Every structure is written in structure tokens, then in C-alpha cells.
């Protein structure tokens, strides 16, 4: 058994797996890791099932004291992880000894890092998922939003040989390449000028962005309000345009229905990539068609 003692919680540290699918008919969000590819890679590096829980660490990481031995791996954003004050490599299995201290310094690239730990996590699940539920957290997933002084127990799994993922196979943290999007259900309701504006400009990710949605600062120029859509499903990756012409990209904790016109949907791999964009970063969209 290994025990993690959180001396600091970090800015926003939550436990996530691949989400709570299958209860959206009850209005319950999917939740789960924002960058699923990185979460899965972290689990692979420690020999866990890819849907196992991981810690999603946002920009400023926690400070964790380990009791007992275990194996960990960190993927996703580079948030300057250190063990006992020495920088450790990412995308690599790391053996942890009793008394080791994991801490983070400045964020270097990306927004969210994923920490996997070999073994079974002793935490409460809700509706088939360990992911922090954005609604009624205290009653549903009290262990999954990390607080100062929290203790997390892991029933250690079988010792793995140390492996590492070569640079070329790691998910890109580039914020330069445009995000590939498919036309959304109301794509045709937008004028040629509005579409041109959407695909021809860069948008800044607003400070009020979170796990529910990324609000983009710039409104579509000269946007004319569309006829209201009768409330209909929305999913992570859906880009809605509000009445003022402002795009919102829905993310993992998004509600399940909405009434704004849906101009596009971000492709799954690029939605993982978008999870690594920070408020203040800029983004461009590129239209792709269905195969």
C-alpha cells in the first residue's frame, strides 16, 4: 500500500478517468479527463487499465509526500515536476520510495498534467466513474476534488519495468496548429461572412474558461442573432455561438443540452489538444469534412 499526503492541493487538482458515459439522458455531464490521450498514456506507463483514475493537475501543481513505495508516471503539460527537488522526466515510469516528496514549479508548456499511480485507488466512485462530478461533488465524489491535507491510499499493483514514451509519440502541446472542426448541426444557419470570420480569425481563450467550457473573447463581427434552437443535445467539443456572437467551446464538464446554434464540433484528438491551451492563448479553427 502507498499513501499520498497532499501538503498542498495545487490550483485545481481533481481525480479523473475517462468519464461518466451513459447517464446523459438524466442531464448528468460526462466529466472525465480533459486531455484523454495523455491520461491514457500515463496509465499505460504504470501498467494500469486506461480507464483507471489519474490526477489531473492544472497549471500550479500540488505538493505530495509519499508513504510506502509505488510507481508513478506524469504526462501532458510540463509543469516542472520534481522529486525531492530534482526535475523528473515526463512520459516515463518512475519508482517512488518511502518519504519522497513530489512538487511542481513553474508551468512550462501546456495547462494540464496527468499523474498515474500503479494500483487500485481507494476512493468512492459514482455512476461508474471516479471522475469529479461538477454537481453535488460533496455527495457524489467527495474524494475526487483534492484538498489540502487529504490522504489518498493506493493498493499497489504488480511492479512494472520502467518504460518511456519517445518524444515523437507524445501528444503535441503546440498551440500553433489550427484545431480541426467538423461542421455543426446549425452550420448552414450562419452566413458566409460569419463563417469566414469564424475560420479566418484567431480567438483568445478567456480567463473565465474552465472545465465546463472555453469562452472565446472575440465575438463574430456583425453577428446577427439566429432563431433559437429548441433545446437539444450538446457534447464536449461542441462550439456554440451565444446571442452576442461569442463562441464557447464546450469541454468535459459541459451540461448535456443547450439552445444556442452549434456552428462546429472539435475533432476528438484536437479536443485533447485544446485542453492544453491556457487562458490568454489564441486558437484558430480549420474546417474538415466527414469521411
Amino acid at each position, binding site marked *: 500500500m502507498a499513501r499520498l499526503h497532499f501538503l498542498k492541493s495545487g490550483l485545481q487538482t481533481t481525480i479523473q478517468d475517462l468519464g461518466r*458515459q*451513459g*447517464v*446523459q*439522458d*438524466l*442531464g*448528468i*455531464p*460526462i466529466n472525465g479527463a480533459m486531455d484523454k490521450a495523455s491520461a491514457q498514456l500515463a496509465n499505460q506507463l504504470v501498467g494500469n487499465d486506461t480507464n483507471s483514475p489519474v490526477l489531473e493537475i492544472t497549471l500550479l501543481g500540488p505538493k505530495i509526500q509519499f508513504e510506502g513505495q509505488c510507481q508513478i508516471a506524469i504526462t501532458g503539460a510540463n509543469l516542472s515536476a520534481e522529486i525531492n527537488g530534482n526535475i523528473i522526466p515526463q512520459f516515463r515510469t518512475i519508482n517512488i520510495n518511502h518519504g519522497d516528496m513530489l512538487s511542481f514549479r513553474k508551468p512550462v508548456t501546456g495547462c494540464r498534467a496527468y499523474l498515474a499511480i500503479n494500483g487500485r485507488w481507494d476512493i468512492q466512485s*459514482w*455512476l461508474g466513474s471516479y471522475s469529479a462530478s461538477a*454537481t*453535488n461533488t460533496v*455527495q*457524489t465524489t467527495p474524494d475526487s476534488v483534492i484538498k489540502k491535507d487529504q490522504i489518498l491510499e493506493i493498493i499497489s499493483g504488480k511492479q512494472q519495468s520502467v518504460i518511456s514514451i519517445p518524444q515523437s509519440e507524445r501528444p503535441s502541446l503546440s498551440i500553433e496548429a489550427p484545431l480541426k472542426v*467538423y461542421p*455543426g*448541426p446549425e452550420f448552414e444557419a450562419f452566413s458566409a461572412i460569419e463563417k469566414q470570420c469564424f475560420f479566418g480569425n484567431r480567438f483568445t481563450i478567456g480567463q473565465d474558461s474552465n472545465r465546463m467550457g472555453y469562452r472565446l473573447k472575440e465575438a463574430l463581427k456583425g453577428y446577427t442573432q439566429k432563431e433559437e434552437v*429548441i*433545446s*437539444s*443535445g*450538446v*457534447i464536449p*467539443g*461542441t462550439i456554440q455561438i451565444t446571442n452576442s456572437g461569442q463562441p464557447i467551446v464546450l469541454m468535459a464538464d459541459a*451540461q*448535456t*443540452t*443547450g439552445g444556442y446554434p452549434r456552428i462546429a*464540433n*472539435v*475533432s*476528438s484528438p484536437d479536443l485533447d489538444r485544446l485542453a492544453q491551451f491556457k487562458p490568454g492563448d489564441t486558437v484558430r479553427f480549420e474546417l474538415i469534412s*466527414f*469521411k
Partner: protein
Amino acid sequence: MKIVPFGDSALLVNFEQKIDEVINNQVLSLYKQLQEVKEVTFLIPAYCSLTVGFGEQTSIKALSEQIEELTSKSQSTDLDLNTKLIEIPVCYEAPYALDMNEVTEKTGLTQQEIIDTHCQETYKVYMLGFVAGFAYLGSLPEQLFCPRKAEPRKEVLAGSVGLAGLQTGIYPANAPGGWQIIGRTPIPTFNPKAEKPTLFKAGDAVKFKSISSSEFEEIEKQVSSNTFNLEEYYG
């Protein structure tokens, strides 16, 4: 009916775009049939559309064909969703009926007429959404038509019963919202400890019953001390 791709891992099935019980039954009929399809990862039935999430074992094309086939074979009159009639006690008095004055002004009805009209109808749960367990109930009698509040509240308390257009609904948790609040129920409509955590599911029927503030307080006390028979509602 029209099937359109919705990103790379979902489809959107659009029915005639109208809030209508018959059209919603078509949505719910397909929703029920697709629950049996193992490649389907999640479903979001709405007023007149169904969002269908799918995994890697199928494709946009294969699943679209499967849906076409299902809908061509079945009739929405076959619908058996195992739905129930749920009676919800509501106190329409202060301090729960925050917007009763505004609603009397907007509708031209008296408070008693609003209560009687709200309680006389049996409503259908058209869909759930907005927050976990929020049921969109319709349709309100035309006399109760009332636009949303000009300024949404930052927080509406759980249990609040509201009106918006021709819809009515109950807030399952404290949440921001712009519906006109005419009362509150002491019955929790979201119960995370229950196997099925929401009181309502799409297709259910709902009727409201007016209770006094002392009855409200009595039920509220029983709910918080776990002596209230919630099974009767959630069973």
C-alpha cells in the same frame, strides 16, 4: 427525420423541429430502442432530437443505417417506456413563491388562479437537461404563459418550481436561472445516493399538488431526518 453527424463520435437525429407530444414520443421511442445497441455510449433525448454517442466499434455510416432501419420498422404508438405518474407537493406561498407577484402581473390571473391552473394539468417530462435531474415539463396551459425573468438569478434554491414560456420545471439543486419561481417542493428531485439518482426520466407524467407551509415544513423535516418514504418516489 434527418440524421446528421455530430462531431466524430456522435450523431444527431433531428425530428420535425417543434415542441409537440407526438414528435417527442418518436424521439423517446428511438431512445428506447437504441438503449439496446451496445456500440451506443450515451443518449440525450430532447424535445425533438436525439443525440447518439458511439464508440470505435461502429461508424457514422453503419450507425445511421441502423437507425434508419429501426425507425422504418417501428411506430411510436408501440411506445412503452415504463414511465410513471409522479405527484409533486408544492407550497405556493411566501417565502417560496418569489415571483408570484410578477407572474400575476404578466398573466393577469390571481394567485389562486395560477395555483389552480398549475395543479389541474398533467405534464409530460419531455427531456432532462441544464443540470443533473432538471426535467422540462410541458405544456403549460396558455393562460400561464410567462416569459423568463429579464435578469436571471445567480442562485435559485433546490426544489424551486418555475415557469418559462409554456414550460414548467423544478430545480434539482441550487443553480443560476431565469425561470419565474412560483413555489417550492420539499421532495428532493435529485438523490445521488439512489441507484437511479434522478426522480424523473423522459416520458414520465407529473402532477402538482398545492400544500400549506406547515405541510411543507413537516415533509422537509422528515426528508432531512431520513424518515420520509422517498422509495415511494424513487422506487
